[in-house]
């Protein structure tokens, strides 16, 4: 045989199964985040578009209170830190710490969801009050739904870790779940600034 092999395709030992950093799941999650981020971007676009056309004060039915949304935001910010710590634990080969970290992260997520339900009850407007109310509820409800999905993902990760499917050599699932969680927190920051903070500082 005088076929010339390219060096990069030479046979060499390869890991079998879920390994490496840019796995299929990593690409899949990246693409999913791209689509979900667009969804939230279009919601915020709609909000700013209708605000820019509004002839009334904005928000028309009064300012959204911060007493639940602000602690909810803090909970999510802390949860990003605990998520990072969880992933680091498994990279260092400490599965029990990973379980603790995941449980703390998902409890913070649950706390945020509960606070958001209380926030809805405290709002001075309803989805049917006016266009601002409609947008406020569809945006926050979309985020809460995504957060519930995130909590379910973390529950799955905690169960699989407890069953021994995750190790210092193979923690791809945790990486992918963490990507989703960071995305949730980042989107919330954009939503919190837009829906809750900007109305306080813009003239209305």
């Amino acid at each position, binding site marked *: 045989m005088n076929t010339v092999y390219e060096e990069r*395709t030479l046979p060499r030992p390869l890991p*079998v199964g879920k390994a490496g950093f840019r796995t*299929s799941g990593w690409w899949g999650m990246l693409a999913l985040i791209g689509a979900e981020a667009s969804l939230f971007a279009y919601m915020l676009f709609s909000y700013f578009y209708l605000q820019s056309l*509004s002839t009334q004060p904005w928000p028309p039915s009064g300012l959204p209170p911060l007493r639940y949304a602000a602690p909810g935001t803090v909970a999510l910010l802390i949860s990003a830190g605990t998520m990072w710590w969880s992933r680091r634990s498994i990279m260092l080969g400490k599965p029990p710490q990973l379980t603790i970290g995941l449980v703390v992260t998902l409890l913070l997520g649950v706390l945020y969801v509960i606070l958001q339900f209380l926030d809805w009850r405290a709002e001075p407007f309803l*989805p049917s009050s006016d266009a601002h109310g409609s947008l406020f509820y569809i945006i926050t409800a979309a985020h809460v739904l995504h957060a519930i999905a995130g909590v379910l993902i973390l529950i799955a990760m905690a169960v699989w870790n407890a069953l*021994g499917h995750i190790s210092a050599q193979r923690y791809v699932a945790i990486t992918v779940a963490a990507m989703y969680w960071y995305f949730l927190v980042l989107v919330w920051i954009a939503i919190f600034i837009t829906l809750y903070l900007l109305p306080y500082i813009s003239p209305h």
Partner: protein
Amino acid sequence: MAVNPTFRTPVIARPTPELKEKLEEMWKDEHTLYGWLSTVDHKKIGHRYLVTAMIFLVMGGLEALAMRLQLAQPDEHLLSPELYNQFFSMHGMTMIFLYSLPILSGFSNYLWPLILGTRDMAFPRLNAFTYWVFLLAGIFLYIGFWEGKGTDVGWFNYVPLASRPYNPDWNVDIYSLGMVFLGVSTTAGAINFMATAFRTRAPGMTISRVPIMIWGTLVSNIGLLFAVPAVSLDFFMLWCDRQFGTHFFDPSMGGHPLLWQHLFWIFGHPWVYAIVLPAMSIVSQALPVYCRRPLVAHSAVVLATILTMVLGFGVWVHHMFSTGLPVVAMGFFSAASFVIVIPSAVSVFAWVATIWTGRPVFTTAFKFFAAEIVLFVIGGVSGFMTAAVPLDWQLTDTYFVVAHIHYVLIGINVFPVIGGLYHWFPKMSGKMLSEKLGWWNFWLMFIGFNVGFFPMHISGLAGMPRRIYTYPASMGWGDLNLITTIGAFIFAIGVLVFVVNVIVTLLAGRKAPANPWDADSLEWATESPPPSYNFAVIPRVGSLHPLWESRLGEQGGRSILEEGPVLDHEHEIPGTTVLDAEPDVILKQPHPTLAPLILALLIAGTFVGMLMSMWWVALGCMCAMVPALFYWFWPRRATGWEMRA
């Protein structure tokens, strides 16, 4: 303790009959109902996409023929105005959403793993899921039509006409929820294509050796990732306005009807590129085969494809020139719409140069591709004519625009698709389509199309508005419309000849060899039709044209097809790096499962519950998705999870 990742050095060998038998046993589906419902084989899913989309094409076509009979002469009474509204709305919705993208997904699902030199998509179960959701959403979108309640305010569904006070019945509710439902399939498919292109190419298929067919679909699907959420949100907000009394589009309560149009066209225009770029890449992939030379300016075509998609996100307002927007906005979007002509035209020049410098073989497929170039130029010119704001004001909502959209969508989608089917049918079925019937097929479609649609330019310039169910004789549009109707029927007979050709060929066609057209890409390196495992040993790619290396001289490397890595422990494919395609892992792909079908049915249940206001059904189906997803993702050794020792 958990087991460490196992490492294995793949054995390099030539395929033996024993190996093929072993792989066939491993990859084939059972010949049972369970096997049929649970398959995750990309080739079967591709077939299903192609057949389902062709059925939708025929349904949309029959709707169009009914409309053409109604319009053939002035003052006809074949269809009532209400029914006519449903026909043109269902026709647009069917062709745009249920035919034109799904048919391309069919090609891509079938061909991608073969062209990429691998055995399946990155996410085979997700692939099955996208098909089931597409099928169920298609049925969902049609349920109203049988009851006489099909969507009836046009495929772009403008508010306030589509809002509850003006459209109190179910028509638009079905359309709104159906479009959100269908968006799930489109988005999931886009995710799968992206991961497949970046992760599962054959070793050695570096980014510069990726065939053009992959580029067109990849770029279009990345575009869809960012575009589809806009329309899903738009339709969902409309449904909320209709169902719960929200005020997104209600100007009396702070909403705005133009918000609908902005979100619709932010999606709508990228969508147009998403349904033509993959079709253009079919031409770029297959036309050079019949010119006996590689595509001219491959890199320029790739870059132009990317640039077209990017610019495609910045031209949506040209659909809204007549809505009273600020002059600055119109100036910007008009200019952007002119600029996009440049990258769009690069392919045209590349194709013409390929034919010019090649030795064309006039097969049916070649004729369809060559016709596509002509129709693309005509449709492109009528497109940038309306990019000029003053001309657009004159022509908007006339038959000129109807002519334009059909030249673009039939010219750049249907013609490449039929040509592509002539090209790849031997690979898909193992039988050669008849060239004799192909001759009739092509000329009937080409002549019928131009006789049917070219006069629409003139009736549009004569002032005939679109979407009217009839017109008085005094307008003088009768002759033009009669010619259009005759052309439409000739075109339909052409499509019928194609269907006959397919059936006759399947029953009694000539057997196809592995590479009947002497083509250059990897799908032709395996048998026709390919075995369930595609390639017995994984090819290693050394150039852009793996099967033409011997005659293209010393440029580029050498591919190795006759021997390669043997991956025969369950469903294995190589995972490779994104730029250099160096193998870095042996991926374990899932086995057939009912999980995708179950999940798709639960989503369908959710949407039916929402449509019927049966909230407990909707909520129950949503909650049931949680265990279904846990089952889907549950760690299994076969999918490469590690197990406790």
